[in-house]
Structures are given as structure tokens and as C-alpha cells.
């Protein structure tokens, strides 16, 4: 079985792909995990190839995926190349508009993973929610192997922060018990904003470009009057983007000077 997992760099795509492959290995199946790698560390979609098989086999890349998991809209073009009428497509229905997904699949399964993680646990464990759900679907893998594999990769982090262990357990359970949406999909409430966000008030015009912002939060750090906070709007890279409180802003331009992404500025009206 060929599984493709694709999303944004920094989303933990590679972690869940490797965990899934390792869990399969622990359960006695033949498995392989290959990350896509390029010159960029971040900034391009993150893609992982997992193959799981009952018998010894060789494969790294594959022509078509049996299961393709899409976790951010920007990964859709890459995934589409590997989808054919035998592919089951899984997508994060809380961030991706169903209509954006190409229609030549066998079936389309939704999971509002971003929303589930955000509302029930914390945003960062959304990948583990997906891991739980897809493992159940793929081969009804005994959860103990999954947990063993997750512990293998994240154990060090858990030691530093016990809360993380609990959150990941919850996330895995949540995903494992989740019943995929098959026709009636969630609304993409965390949809990416593509137009600029402008606020003309208090004699100032503040502008944020969600298509450029990568969510590094340097503007928050460098603002001397704490006029910047993160909004609920999601940028091109799947991260929340900053919003500026024009009332507090003293027009020091630190945000625009420091911003690596030319994504933010304030000027006089």
C-alpha cells in the first residue's frame, strides 16, 4: 500500500509519516518511509512517501498513491500528480475547501484535524490526530504499536514536558476513534486568506499580506508598544498572521523593518 502525506513544512508531516512506517514495522509488516527533500528547509510543501506491505518488497517513490493525505491547500498540486481513480484521498476539512480537491479519486474522506486539535487539545498536535485516524483506516493497526512508535520519536520531548505526552495521547485517541466525513464535510473555517488585510483607522493604515507572512512573530517581539498580536486569519503557509492595533501603534516601523517576509507595514493615513 502506497501512502502519500503532504502538507506544509513545520506541520509535523515527516514525523507522522515516519511514525506510521515504524509502527507498521513494529507490527511485523514490511514498511518504508522516504521524505521528499530539496534545497529548502522550509517554504515548500512537505511531502512524505510511506509504503506498507505484507511481504518483503522494495520501493521508495511510487507512481500512484493508494492513500493520499492532504493537510494544506498548497500541497494539492503535488498530491494531484499521484492521485488516480484507485486513490482514497484524506483531507483536513477544517482548512481546505472541498472544491479545491481534484475529483479523479476513488473516495474522499474528510477530517477537520486543525479544528479538532485547536478546540479539544492544542493546535500543534493536529498531525497526531491525523496519524490516529489514518492508521485506523489503513490497516486497523493495534494502537500499542502506534504509541510505541510515537514514543520512539517524541520520547525525548515528552521527558522534557509531561503535558505533551498527555496531549499526544489524547490526539492519537481522538484520531483513532474519529469517523471520517464521507459526504457531508466540515466547513473550512481556517481557510487561507489571500487578500491583504488593511486597517485604516486612528490616522494610520496598517497592512498585512497573508500571502507573504510565514508567521515568525518577529514583529510581535520587536514592537515596543505591544500593538501586534496574532489573529485567527491563516496565511499562505498555514500559520496565523499578525494583526496590528492601530490605536497603540506609534509608527516606529520596527515591524516592517524587521519583517523577513515584507508582509507587514504601517503608514500615516
Amino acid at each position, binding site marked *: 500500500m502506497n501512502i502519500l502525506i503532504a502538507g506544509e*513544512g*513545520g506541520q509535523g508531516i515527516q514525523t507522522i509519516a515516519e511514525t506510521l512506517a515504524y509502527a507498521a514495522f513494529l507490527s511485523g509488516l514490511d514498511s518504508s518511509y522516504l521524505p521528499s527533500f530539496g*534545497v*529548502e*528547509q*522550509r*517554504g*515548500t510543501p512537505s511531502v512524505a512517501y510511506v509504503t506498507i506491505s505484507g511481504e518483503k518488497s522494495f520501493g521508495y517513490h511510487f507512481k500512484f498513491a493508494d492513500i493520499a493525505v492532504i493537510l494544506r491547500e498548497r500541497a494539492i498540486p503535488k498530491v494531484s500528480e499521484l492521485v488516480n481513480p484507485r486513490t482514497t484521498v484524506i483531507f483536513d476539512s477544517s482548512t481546505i475547501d472541498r472544491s479545491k480537491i481534484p475529483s479523479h479519486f476513488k473516495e474522499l474522506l474528510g477530517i477537520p484535524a486543525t479544528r479538532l486539535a485547536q478546540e479539544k487539545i492544542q493546535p500543534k498536535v493536529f498531525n497526531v490526530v491525523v496519524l490516529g485516524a489514518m492508521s485506523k483506516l489503513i490497516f486497523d493497526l493495534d494502537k500499542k504499536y502506534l504509541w510505541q512508535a510515537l514514543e520512539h520519536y517524541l520520547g525525548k520531548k515528552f521527558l522534557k514536558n509531561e503535558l505533551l505526552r498527555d496531549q499526544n495521547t489524547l490526539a492519537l485517541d481522538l484520531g483513532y476513534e474519529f469517523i471520517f466525513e464521507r459526504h457531508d464535510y466540515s466547513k473550512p473555517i481556517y481557510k487561507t486568506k489571500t487578500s491583504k488585510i488593511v486597517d485604516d483607522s486612528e490616522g494610520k493604515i496598517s*497592512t498585512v*499580506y497573508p*500571502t*507573504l507572512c*510565514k*508567521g*515568525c*512573530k*518577529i514583529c*510581535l*517581539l520587536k514592537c515596543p508598544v505591544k500593538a501586534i498580536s496574532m489573529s485567527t486569519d491563516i496565511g*499562505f*503557509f498555514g*500559520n496565523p498572521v499578525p494583526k496590528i492595533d492601530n490605536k497603540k501603534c506609534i509608527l516606529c516601523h520596527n515591524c*516592517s*523593518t*524587521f*519583517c*523577513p*517576509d*515584507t*508582509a*507587514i*507595514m504601517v503608514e500615516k493615513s
Partner: protein
Amino acid sequence: MNYKTMPKCYKNSSKPHFFCPGCGHAMILKQLGSTIDELKISAEVVFGIDIGCSLLAWDFFDFDTIQTHHGRVIPVMIGVKKANPKKVAVAYMGDGGGYAIGLQSLIHAAYRDDPVVAILVNNTNYAMTGGQMAPTTFPGEITTTSSSGKKSSGFGNYLDGLKLLSSVADQSAYLERVSVSNPRQIVSAFKKAFETSDKNHFSFIEILSICPTNWKTDAADSFEFLKNMEDKFPVQKYPLGE
């Protein structure tokens, strides 16, 4: 789409760029772009980039840009400048490219006073390959090839390239170290470097920079580590006291 936040010499079609969230390179390139805008020299600039994360800048600007090999940006830019002295040759590299694999070219360019503008971004690691130890890595600093912290015995202390170059550079050369904690100072250093290039001399700007991805730091911790770098790599000009 038109972005009023971008310097004019930015190539819009290549944005959003490929650098990581919070990357110092992108901050530095922005200051470089605005300096070039201000001096109105984009038609004269030939921008050469090394391999390492700097390679991602190959189509960053709307001016002539050549992506070279690891450690070889200075040699290529020397060839460019010699062939066309009217051009402003900018050689952009990281600390691995400048202080390890390409160090002898950097030293010789400084020593010969080749009129290139050398810009070196120091983030104390090999970032493109995933954060390995560099000559600039501090003793005790954890990287993927110094997982229990860099040992100064056998791996060296940390290389102060500016000090090294200052001992070989020609009197007329301009050398300065700045930090992304002070973007305005970066602009004034760039201006001084371009002035020096106009007078046909070598200039070198080392910029202390942040690497949140490989340092595994958030915004606040990145700038905290940068402060630590500024203690060890003093932000100053050579010759001292100028």
C-alpha cells in the same frame, strides 16, 4: 500582485521567497534591496551567491544574479569585476562558504584588495544541510554534528573571521561586522561597502544572523542567542576606532 512593502529591485514573481519563517537571510536581503534602491545602482549590480541557504536567493532580485558553487562566489565575482570594472560585484555567502570551504579565496581577495563587496551571513551553523557544526559554532553549542555540544579541543574554538581578515586586508579595504538586531546599521554598512567598491577597493560585511529552524528557537530565543553572538563576535569596524 504589487506589494508596497517590497524594495523596488525585488523580483515579485519569486515571492513569497523560499527562506524559513524568521530567517535572517530574508531580513538581510531586504536591507540589501533597499540600499540598492536608494543608491539607484540595480543596473550596475551583479549579484553572486554561494551555496548554502544563500543559494535560495538566485532569483530573489530583479538584477543580474549568478548562483555559483560552494565556497566559490568570490572567485566568480573577481572574474566578473575584472571583465567589467563598471559593474558592482556583490558576493553573498554564509559562514560555511566564507570561513570554511572558501576561506582562502576570501583571504586572498582581502589581501589583493579585489574590488568586490563581500557579504557574509554568520548564523553559526551549516543551515541548508540541516544545522551542522561550522567554524563559527561556539564551544558547547549543539548542532547535528556536535550533538553533545561542540568540543573546542579538536574542533576549535570559534573563528573570528573579521579579525582574521583585518590582519591581511589592504589599508584601503573596508571591513565591518553588523547584526540583524540593528537593520539600520546593516544599511549604513552596505552603503559604506558600495562606496568602497566605487573607489575600487575590497569591502567585507559580516552580518550576525538568526536561524530559528536549526537553532530550534522562537522569535524571542533567536534574538537572545543573537545577543550571545554579539558578545563573542563584537559588532565593530576595522581598522578599530575608525
